[in-house]
């Protein structure tokens, strides 16, 4: 197990190194830089002034020097300074992280709470009216983009209740009820879509397991439906479900752009898009690295869970 984890960590580090190169290169390949944006807010461009600002920000140096400098800073825990805000990048990124993590976790929780039970019911009641209704429900979730659903929720709230959630982040220590309300609606909007995927995977996986001999044996032994389904069938059907949950959570860390934007939540994804538009390299590079770390960790966690769920899965050695 230790060897396996060590191997995975080495692979993770190599992946992060690769990611850092890709994001660094992609940012430089995109047309324009922060200085062009600054001048665009002033409505003119002066080549000499542009050169001076590039020098001030250090983006006139060769790319490899900039890359090495970034790596060196990362290793010392210094994320550099935001070009746009002229403040340490960490100071700007730090408050965004919990918002996105909480929203992603809550969305995933909703997705699991809705997706797994409906998937099980749908499989157990295969080809019944209930199955068709639940499949329709999940198909609707897959078909509806989260941003559309989010906008419909906002418009519905304002039209019927003349109310919308708070416009800035409310800390749970400040007002727990309002905080819950602020996160509940976007989490439901996102969670519904993810739940549809989980429901379909749960259903198909469970249907497959239900046809296995050991399930027939369990039925033959006279065990109750609850025991057969929840203890024997579902546990074995969960491996692909857990994989999907892990992927969904990782996807949500960077994929909440529109939901955060529509609900005006100051999270990582919303800020990342703004930082990309501003070519704020220190912010973009470090936020992408943060997302990469979360993706790698969640994948690692999923792999670890395999062993817990299925004792036959053994690692390394």
């Amino acid at each position, binding site marked *: 197990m230790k060897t396996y984890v060590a191997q995975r960590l080495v692979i993770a580090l190599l992946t992060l190194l690769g990611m850092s190169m890709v994001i660094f290169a992609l940012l430089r390949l995109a047309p324009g830089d922060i200085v*062009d944006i600054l*001048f665009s807010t*002033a409505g003119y461009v*002066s080549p000499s002034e542009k050169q001076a600002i590039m020098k001030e920000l250090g983006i006139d140096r060769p790319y490899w020097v900039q890359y090495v400098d970034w790596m060196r800073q990362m290793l010392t825990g210094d994320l550099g300074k935001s070009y746009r805000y002229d403040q340490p990048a960490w100071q700007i990124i730090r408050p965004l992280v919990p918002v996105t993590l909480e929203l992603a976790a809550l969305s995933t929780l909703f997705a699991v709470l809705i997706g797994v039970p409906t998937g099980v019911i749908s499989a157990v009641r295969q080809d019944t009216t209930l199955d068709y209704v639940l499949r329709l429900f999940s198909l609707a979730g897959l078909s509806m983009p989260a941003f559309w659903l989010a*906008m419909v929720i906002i418009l519905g709230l304002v039209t019927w209740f*003349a109310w919308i959630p708070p*416009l800035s982040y409310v800390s749970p220590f400040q007002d727990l009820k309002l905080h819950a309300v602020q996160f509940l609606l976007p989490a439901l909007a996102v969670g519904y879509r993810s739940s549809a995927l989980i429901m379909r995977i749960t259903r198909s996986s469970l249907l497959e397991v239900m046809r296995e001999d050991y399930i027939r044996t369990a039925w033959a032994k006279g065990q109750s439906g609850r025991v057969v389904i929840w203890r024997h069938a579902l546990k074995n059907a969960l491996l692909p479900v857990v994989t999907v949950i892990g992927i969904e959570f990782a996807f949500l860390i960077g994929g909440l752009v529109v939901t955060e934007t529509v609900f005006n939540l*100051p999270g990582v994804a919303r800020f990342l898009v703004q930082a990309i538009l501003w070519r704020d390299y220190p912010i973009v590079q470090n936020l992408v690295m943060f997302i990469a770390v979360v993706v790698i960790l969640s994948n690692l966690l999923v792999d670890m869970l395999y062993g817990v769920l299925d004792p036959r899965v053994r690692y390394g050695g």
Partner: protein
Amino acid sequence: MSRVRIALLSITILALAALLFAPATSQSQTPQASPTPKPGGVLNMMLREDLSQGFSIHETATISTVWPAMPCLNNLVLFDPLKKTESVDTIIGELAEKWSWQDHYRNLVFFLRKGVKWHDGQPFTSKDVKFTFDMLREAPDAPAKLRINPRKDWYANVEAVETPDTYTAVFRLKKPQPSLLLMLASGYTPVYAAHVPPADYRTNCVGTGPFKVKEWRKGEYVEYVKNPDYFVKGRPYLDGLKYFVILERGTRQAAIQAGKLDVSFPGETSKTAAEQLKKAVPQLVITPFSQNVADNIIMNMKKPPFDNVKVRLAVSHAIDRRALIQAVQQGGAVVGAGLAPKPWGFWGLAEKDLVGLPGYGAKPADEKALARKLMGEAGYSRAKPLKVEIVTRAIAVYVDMASFVINELKQVGIEATLKQIETAQWHAMATRGDYQIGANLTGVGPDDPDANYYENYACGSPRNYSQYCNEEVMKMFDAQSQELDPKKRLALNFAIQKRLEADAARPILDWKLDYFTVWPHVKNLIPHQSIYNFGRMQEVWSDR
């Protein structure tokens, strides 16, 4: 109680309830200054994006900075916040108690207020005035330099800023320029503190203004609290201001509708959006006003085919301005030439004066026929059409306008394809002249000819994207700038605008209107003739 009495009582109660709970009828179109302001309350407002350069107004040319940064700062003079018209007659003193023109408009003397303090407690003096304006005009001995200085040209005529004593500042001009005062009254012209490095304004604000920055949560909000030491006694009325950054337009509109926000953003509300809001919440107060932003066509005069005035004029004749206003702006704009027309502006040509100028004829078909004739004279025909690439910013308001223009040009034998340019590239491309023809938007700070002409039409100006340069017209710019008689100056300006359109220097398509929206309890927030000049919030109060 008899049945009749019960019935009467019920009717009375119902009538009273209806009176109490019925939606209030719309207020007058323009929020009126109220005689009995109430202190207290916090105003919630919106921003479409975060402050682009913090509070450093001098380093930007965008309303996204001016609007939320204005409450922190003061000018020497300002357009009266309570009057919607902006002219010399509506200028009031801020840091200057009085001012006086001397030596036939060659010296502008400001007598400064005493006892004014910066938010960090330092006293305000004439040293701050000299510091700011030497920095802006990039005087050789200026103690500081701005990273980006978009309005340097405004101060090209200032020879020196002198400070004979602590509370007097004198602007010595190279030649008379009465309109300098109007530029000094713009929201774009605050005074910075001499003891604070200009770069610091990008992250914080040390001003003398009615409000002090409490917190700027990046990408989230800017919060202000009342400045208790403000030099105008009894002001501001409000205890605070909060500007929320809301990137999604639908959310911004929902927030206004739900009453989470008290005020819309200047330049935010189109006519259609205003109508939707009014339908949903009839009591909202909606005031149409000029954004002082014009849709226009830029054509690179340094390169063929637009170095040929006939081709430029053909383009101008081809575009039906009135149809554009209906189709693209849904009626939320007005026709005009180089400056916004009355009542939205002061200096622009009225619609009747536009007749006869390219593109303003009564019959669009005749205009298009004329355009085709000009194209023929320039050597183009149906068999040999002119093929061009029309550039525009990759933003919906630009693209919509450009698409309309392409369709119009097609009808006169100009085959244009659209190329969208990302914001990061747009100004660099336009300044370099790396384009043939473009669909553009131009905002003007104060509604004043000098601010517009020298920035957008003068030889060598970096914002003169068409690279139009006409020495004769430059002399006309100078003549109107130095003209002391207001009537003569207006007449000169009419002549200049006609000349610019006749030269197809930068054909103006329309002047956009905004439908500024506030809740009825917001008092004394009166939109001006320009979106850039009424964000001080000193006089605003909340009647909750």
